[in-house]
């Protein structure tokens, strides 16, 4: 089985409000997917549906089963970090290890202890005695020592300073990612995870507005720093986004052949952040 998550007509309503409106997407095994969208776009609803934390309509298969069968079944093969730093303050580090070892068949205590040995965290300490950054390290060491098929990270680095954010993603890539496990990361700090991702899902107002592997972004999207004399011609090719900075106009085009664009100016692949703004402004129109 190469699909880890298959969503077909996934819909989530809160009264009249549709947080997710007939959403379709597929997550392939071994991919690192960025689920990116503004606040209230439906990111958390999507993740909660995948994790079996909420009811929804439509079809959704996570590792071949319907998450509505129960969160605890999902959690045997899926791990999630909703927000680092939500470990209970009274918990001792050693107790956290005992607990997860006791309830999760996929937990490697040895791996967690090895990771913790590289930090200043001692097994006797309680969570409340740790700094926020150390709690992050602890949470990450615990979760990354569980062998699962899918890891879900919902705004995992919110509220952390840049050093810990960077360390978080470094550890995720170096100690964890083995091309067997799939990872979904939702965030709006796009720049930081851009280099990590193998697949992009943009979500806005309950709809998927972009679903593309990273490597094919260059085939579909092109950013052009337009020469001043070519501006009108460029506008005629319907750019999806125009940005002006330091007197230069840069435009993003979707599915426009490079042969048309090359005469207009310098071409390159747009950054995910620029693409995000472009797609969302377009969706808003």
């Amino acid at each position, binding site marked *: 089985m190469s699909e880890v998550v298959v969503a077909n007509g996934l819909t989530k309503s809160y009264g009249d409000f549709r947080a997710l409106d007939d959403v379709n997407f597929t997550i392939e095994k071994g991919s690192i997917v960025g689920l990116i969208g503004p606040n209230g776009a439906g990111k958390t609803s999507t993740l909660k549906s995948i994790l079996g934390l909420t009811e929804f309509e439509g079809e959704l298969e996570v590792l071949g089963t319907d998450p509505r069968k129960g969160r605890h*079944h999902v959690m045997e093969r899926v791990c999630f970090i909703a927000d680092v730093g*939500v*470990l209970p*303050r009274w918990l001792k580090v050693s107790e956290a290890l*005992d607990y997860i070892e006791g309830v*999760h068949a996929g937990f490697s205590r040895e791996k967690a202890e090895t990771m913790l040995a590289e930090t200043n965290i001692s097994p006797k300490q309680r969570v409340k005695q740790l700094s926020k950054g150390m709690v992050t390290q602890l949470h990450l060491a615990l979760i990354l020592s569980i062998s699962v098929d899918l890891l879900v990270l919902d705004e995992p680095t919110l509220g952390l300073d840049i050093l810990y954010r960077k360390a978080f993603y470094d550890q995720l890539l170096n100690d964890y990612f083995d091309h067997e496990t799939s990872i979904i990361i939702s965030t709006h700090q796009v720049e930081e995870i851009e280099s990590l991702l193998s697949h992009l899902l943009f979500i806005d107002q309950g709809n998927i507005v972009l679903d593309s592997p990273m490597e094919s972004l260059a085939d579909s999207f092109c950013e052009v720093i337009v020469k001043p004399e070519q501006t009108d011609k460029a506008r005629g090719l319907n750019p999806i986004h125009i940005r002006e900075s330091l007197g230069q106009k840069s435009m993003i085009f979707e599915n426009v052949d490079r042969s048309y664009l090359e005469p207009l100016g310098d071409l390159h692949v747009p950054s995910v952040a620029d693409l995000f703004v472009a797609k969302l402004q377009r969706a808003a129109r």
Partner: protein
Amino acid sequence: MNKFTILLRREIWENINSFVYLPIVVASLCAFFLISGIGALQIGGGSINIHADIDYKSDQMTQTYDVNDTFDSLVGRGLQEFASRPEPSKRNALNRVYLGISDPLMITLRLVIIFYLVMSLYQDRKDRSILFWKSMPVSDFTTVLSKLITALVVVPAIYLACCMALHLVLLLVSSLSALGHDVPIWSTLWAPAGIITRWLEMASYLLIVGLWCLPFFAWLLIISSRAKSVPLAWIIGLPFVLILLETIFSSTGYVKDFISDHVAPLTMAKDLERGIGPIIDRVMNVELLISLVIGLAFIVGAVLFRGKADEL
């Protein structure tokens, strides 16, 4: 390790103060007052002449002693009189003493259980750690069950263990103070105390009370799993409304009696003085069945609410 055992240990870790340290402190205080009280009388009383008119009321008769003697010989005579009493009278008197000295622990236990249940499914929503607990493959039913078993079995067992230790101290101290008074210690203080039976009866009593009060305990779990905050208003609100409705629309007192008896079964605690028999007789009827049904319905409610629960 068994998955459920680790969930129970988790509850103890979180509540180590009220589950373990508090009963040890309460039992130690009881033992301290016991030892220092008897010790002071032994040491101080031995050399001081006292004069008092003591009305001694036994099961059969009322006697007035005119005492003008040392405390030590007073203890001696008291013990000798006690030793000469018939077996059932000795048993009853010691039963009351052993239960009486357990009271502080039993009352503390009751309060600790109530407080624990109210917070058990609320605290982790408040501090957002529910997001961590829910990332583990433990079902909502198992989670709620672990809280309930903790309240019905684990905590009472710990408090009972402290009671047992306290009883052993009492047995030891009373035996020491009887030395040199020419009374047969075994047949006066040990055999009638029957502490093994006492412990078994207390254990059964705690389990029965737990089941009898299941509607109340499970009600606390529902509040804990659902409420945005846990004000007293929630806990007493519904029972109060039910009693009010009954008063307005009917002249019966069934609801009121049921609620008060299943929240604070005081008569049952009193009954324990006469052994576990009367308590079993009292609960073995359809009312226990009703309690269990209401309790289970509330537990199902708590599990459903827990399933939907999110951070506050």
